[in-house]
């Protein structure tokens, strides 16, 4: 029977004049796209196997290789796009659910690209961050509504606080590294994140992968996650982190659980996750002890009890239609911070159809949640961490102005480590040594260099945020947080503007 051809995505051009048959590409490609033939002494390439990660290209000593998009197209039209035809072809072959990695790549509106920032002119001076302090320090956690002072009579006239503030996470910049589990990414990638978070004064998140022995020293900069599979969760783990995050949902795959294929469960992953080697690690879609908000409250307080109320406990939810009331319930259930993961949030593995069709953009979710918490007078009771597709410091500063306390970055952190967004994380064959457990591949990522690149990224983005703040005449990030007057929309509908709570560009105060 005739089939729809599955057109290869990429073509690898080899300049035979430049190729010296050194076979570096053959050794480098985990997908076996390049092969060497002893008899002819030639290297040939099967472009069908290429995922477009450009690893061979960047290591070819003579620049003989060029990876480019395949311009050959199946007959497609505005409705039937090539990728859909390809999906059908694959599913007709296999009868399976299509998998993918990374965040949603579909052309939904990206509101960041329709929001513009303000700057000072004449009536208020801009502030030069090179000459004046520019403060990005951020505290995450529950805060009281007001401060109370002790009666000064008993203290000999000294001002003493009656109000005691619960433990907070202190961030030197309002950026954290998203939850990415050991298992889905390599230990070297985890180390890079942990070291960078430690050095810069922020946090990384274990995801559902447990905490590898080597990473315990970085506990003060670690958020440990408790997800539906409870992998790697034990008392020592909970106590090792600075905060605990209960994962209810993930932006890339709201409503479903996780799946780490057994191929990635080697000895170290097995020990860390407390599961047998080679077994699939399947996280259920719901927590089987959370069937409603009151159950969530019990888990929050169980974790607080287990850690003697010394650590903030947060809850991560994906941005779905009802996100604002859900977040309100989560805050009322006692969460110290709420992490919201939007439509474009990344993943190591998710069904393509879920990733591409479920959830809402993080921009709208931040605005809705922040507004709702304020309406209910409980915005102080928890911090909001936004996640899902922050590409530049511009996106981040806009998220803060919409109302987020801080943001999680995942994909952009991995890109800093070398990721080329090939979206094949679930295969475990990551050439860049990130989303793989193959020792031959993981050693490609040097955690010292990785950490340095991540610190560089945090520094660069923090400097840029300072520049933008200064331009607006603001010298502390809390004066921008929720300050939607700093934002204006372009090319947005009245409804979009209403939900975002911002004015259209051109309208003054």
């Amino acid at each position: 029977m005739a089939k729809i051809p599955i057109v290869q995505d990429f073509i690898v051009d080899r300049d035979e004049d430049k190729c010296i048959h050194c076979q570096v590409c053959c050794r480098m490609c985990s997908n076996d796209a390049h092969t060497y033939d002893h008899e002819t002494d030639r290297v040939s390439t099967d472009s069908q196997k290429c995922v477009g990660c450009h690893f061979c290209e960047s290591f070819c000593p003579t620049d003989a290789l060029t990876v480019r998009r395949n311009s050959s197209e199946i007959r497609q039209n505005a409705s039937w796009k090539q990728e859909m035809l390809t999906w059908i072809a694959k599913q007709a072959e296999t009868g399976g659910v299509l998998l993918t990695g990374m965040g949603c790549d579909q052309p939904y509106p990206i509101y960041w690209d329709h929001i513009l920032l303000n700057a000072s002119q004449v009536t208020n001076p801009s502030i030069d961050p090179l000459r004046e302090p520019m403060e990005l320090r951020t505290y995450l956690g529950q805060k009281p509504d007001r401060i109370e002072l002790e009666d000064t009579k008993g203290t000999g006239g000294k001002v003493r606080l009656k109000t005691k503030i619960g433990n907070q996470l202190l961030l030197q910049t309002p950026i954290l590294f998203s939850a990415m589990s050991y298992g889905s990414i390599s230990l070297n990638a985890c180390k890079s994140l942990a070291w960078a978070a430690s050095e810069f004064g922020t946090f990384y998140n274990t995801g559902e992968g447990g905490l590898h022995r080597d990473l315990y020293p970085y506990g003060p900069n670690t958020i440990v996650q408790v997800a539906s599979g409870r992998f790697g969760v034990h008392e020592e783990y909970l106590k090792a982190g600075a905060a605990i995050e209960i994962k209810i949902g993930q932006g890339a795959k709201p409503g479903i659980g996780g799946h780490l294929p057994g191929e990635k469960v080697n000895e170290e992953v097995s020990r860390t996750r407390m599961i047998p080697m080679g077994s699939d690690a399947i996280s259920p879609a719901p927590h089987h002890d959370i069937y409603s908000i009151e159950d969530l409250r019990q888990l929050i307080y169980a974790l607080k009890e287990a850690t003697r109320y010394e650590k903030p406990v947060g809850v991560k939810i994906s941005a779905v239609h009802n996100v604002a009331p859900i977040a309100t319930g989560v805050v009322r259930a006692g969460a110290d911070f709420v992490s919201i993961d939007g439509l474009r949030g990344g993943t190591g593995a998710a069904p393509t159809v879920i990733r591409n069709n479920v959830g809402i953009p993080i921009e709208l979710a931040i605005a809705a949640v922040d507004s709702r918490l304020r309406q209910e007078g409980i915005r102080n009771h928890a911090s909001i961490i936004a996640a899902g597709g922050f590409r530049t410091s511009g996106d981040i500063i806009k998220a803060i102005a919409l109302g987020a306390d801080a943001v999680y970055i995942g994909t952009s952190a991995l890109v800093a480590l070398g990721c080329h967004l090939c979206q094949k994380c679930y295969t475990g064959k990551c050439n860049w040594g990130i989303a793989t457990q193959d020792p031959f591949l993981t050693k490609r990522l040097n955690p010292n260099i990785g950490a340095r690149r991540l610190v560089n990224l945090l520094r660069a983005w923090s400097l840029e945020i300072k520049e933008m703040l200064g331009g607006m005449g603001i010298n502390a990030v809390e004066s921008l947080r929720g300050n939607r007057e700093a934002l204006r929309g372009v090319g947005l509908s009245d409804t979009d503007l209403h939900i975002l709570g911002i004015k259209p560009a051109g309208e003054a105060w």
Partner: protein
Amino acid sequence: MMEEFMKKSRMDFRFSENDAGCANDVSRKTVADKDYRVPSGCGISGIMNEAGERFSGEAVMTSIALMRDRSNGLGGGFAAYGIYPDLASYYAFHLMCETEDARRQAEEYLKLSYTIMHDEPIPSREVKVITRSPILWRYFLKPREEALARNPLLGEEDLIAQTVMHINGQITDALVASSGKNMGIFKGVGYPEDIGEFYRLEEYKGYTWTAHGRFPTNSVAWWGGAHPFGLLDWSVVHNGEISSYGINRRYLQNFGYQCTFFTDTEVITYLVDLLSRKHRLPFEIVAKILAAPFWVDIERMPQEEKEFYQSLRMIYGSALLNGPFGVIVCNTETMLGLNDRLKLRPLVAARAGDFVYVASEESAIREICPQPDRVWMPRAGEPVIGRLRKDIPVADADADRPLASHQGLSAAIQNFDAASQGQSLRAAGQDVQADREVL
């Protein structure tokens, strides 16, 4: 809901502006300044006699007149304390109304909750340069028992605040300029000295006076939008632009404050009211919230102070006023002069005997007090505080005000402030020692 309402009211006003066509059209309204924020530069001046001796408004008019080029004739105003000694136990409401109908509506509303002990037009005289003015009326009000009993959780001052917000927000063409006891705000469109003359301020005697000359960037100017802004016995005159306005306003909404004027002075007033009256924090601490010290300076403080300031900033981050400002905030007992945390706008202070002076320029002080005992430049974020020594018989309700019971506390703050002084010095060349003494 609230935001929706504001959006609606904004839209309405915007259309009316377009209809008017020309900004200087004399058919325009004189009262309402409810549509959008107008950035403005300004001159401010304040005088307080800490012994409570009352003096005429002439001094402050002379002082602000000297800074004529800091304003552009589109707004001027004064706040005066101690001017109604005979009616001191009643809330003095200064109303500005576009129409007689609006005044009657407001009056009917007032009658629901108050007994009107006395009311009259606010005296004024004709001044050549002031061609149009709204209806200006003052009411001396006593809250009715049943109005207070309606909601036992609300105090008398909350009732007043609600009344003011209702009239400003819901009654078209009527605004409450001031609502405190034994004090009043007199303001309008014009140079401040002309406004003072218009209101015959030289005929009043008060122990605290503040003045404001406005330089708005657009030509739309309403009487209601002039400074000072007032609520209860608070008055605020302000030179600057608050870049954190958006979050300050949203923060206040959490506590039930409706910002209907879209002005910086409004949010400053409400923030001070929230922190000082509702959260019962002394002025010294309020100043440290509005113009918070930098983290680098907090880090260098001794442990206890460090925790104190960390807590302040964590809890009240959204109340931080960011952007350039010099502001004078007054209530019955106090005059607070404060600069932003970088000192991006000018503010000078002086003392002479029982008098405390704060002004945008030193010249404005020397004009009325050529040889003060001391003149100094307060540092960024360092408050200048004048306190009434004599207990002015204003009202019983004020007896338990937080400020009165926190005198010891203020002294304590001075102590630890002084201790951390050496480290927290930012601006060079300023008279720190002199600065300390005034606190």
